[in-house]
């Protein structure tokens, strides 16, 4: 789904987004990471979607996570509740993209 179509559709309680939809979301998430987290020299294509975002992998911390939350909210027009900002949702680009797909 394009983002415009997703805004016109009512939110669905069950995640039914297509693989293509999640892939596109993942590309946008990677771009948000590069643009918002000031990671020197990082390009979107260098980010492994299944790799951990925190600790190892990109080595992001709690403030990076929250920065990404605000960026995701703005980009996708969704609201993320505080109790949803958990390690599972944000454990990787892939898990975050699946979460977003279920929301748009």
């Amino acid at each position, binding site marked *: 789904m394009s983002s415009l179509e997703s805004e016109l559709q009512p939110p669905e309680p069950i995640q039914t987004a297509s693989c293509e939809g999640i892939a596109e979301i993942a590309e946008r998430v990677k771009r948000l990471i590069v643009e918002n*987290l*000031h*990671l*020197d020299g990082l390009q979107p294509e260098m980010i492994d979607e299944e790799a951990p975002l925190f600790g190892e992998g990109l080595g992001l911390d709690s*403030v*990076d996570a*929250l*920065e990404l939350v*605000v960026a995701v*909210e*703005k980009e996708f027009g969704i609201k993320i509740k505080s109790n949803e900002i958990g390690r599972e949702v944000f454990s990787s680009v892939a898990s975050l993209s699946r979460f977003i797909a279920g929301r748009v």
Partner: protein
Amino acid sequence: MVITGLGTVGAWGCGSGALARALAAGVPPAATAVDRSAGYHRRCGARRALLTPMAALAEWVPPAEARRMSPPSRLAVAAARMAIGAAGLAAADVAGLGTAVVTATVFGPSSFSDALLLQIVHEGPQAVSPYLFSESVANAPTAQIAIACGARGPNLTLCQGEAGALLAVARAAAAVMEGRAERALAGAVDEMPAMLHGLLDRFGTLAHRPCRAPGGESGRPFDRRRNGVVAADGATILVLETAAAAARRGAAPLAHVRAWGSAFDPSASTAGWGSGAPALGRSLRRAMERRGVAMGAIDRIASGASGSRGGDRLEAGLLRAAWGDAALPPVLAPKAVTGEYGGGFLAAALLAAAGAPYGPTAGFAEPDPRLGVVPHDGRRLPPPALLLASSVAAGGAAAWLLLAAGGAG
């Protein structure tokens, strides 16, 4: 109490060498044109500021570490690392409970708090960046120095306008003297983003020239036609420790901290200048007398005069009142070179105490007969035995620091 290391960054670059050369020549570093397109500035107001070349900080604060630091945090951490190296200390010496960090800032990470306010107003409060907020607090630079150096002793950030830098050194010296720390990293930091520059201009704080006049504005300390300060950014950090500790590790002091004092002029208006010079002068004398220092023993003054109409008048008045009928010793006005804010004055005062030569006072052309103070004209002076650094802040505070030359016992 001695100062064993100096780290400083500013428009002159990184390190005290370039600053010392500028002071010796009496020529300020090149000022940078400030972006006035957002419309905060007055139409014929200030156009330039003395800004640190931020790219030069990368040697001290690598990009991976700097990525989440506000500009003042980067400036402060760079200066702290420089100071530690200059003091001959290793990182392992500084890490631990024994190192206190006391810095002063006038405006804090203003670019970040301004950006947050823009987000709130234009995008709504929920669009606010957590990263910007975490680095927008006045104590962010002090906290980042502690994190960078592992300094786990007392950690304080002072905000007292132009008097903050000398207060921070005094507070740090007191902490070491009271045994709360073995050493302290003390100093000052400020950034000077365009919006802050514009608002200062609007307040009438900044030096300015007629609209179509060529060249840049100057801060003219004590000059009859002074009309404001030249704003600067930067950071200066000193390493303070007891004379005994320095001697134990064979570190040669740059200067001894002999005395300090501070006072307040309640006749000042908020962010303004009062008429309390006589009382401030008496407070300065009392502060020196408490430490057994006769005013006549002070043979050099590093004045915080900066070209502010009211500030320089107050400064001249309190110095004249403190010295009474006696003639003032030579008065240096380093802010002619360093500008106002950013800690340059502190570095310049320390250099003067350590014997660095000063050239003529840049920007000074004509004495103001109402002040009765004429700043240094560049003639050769012997290194001082006792140098008094003096600063007055808008809003009423004043602070002093007495430094003795490094070789003194």
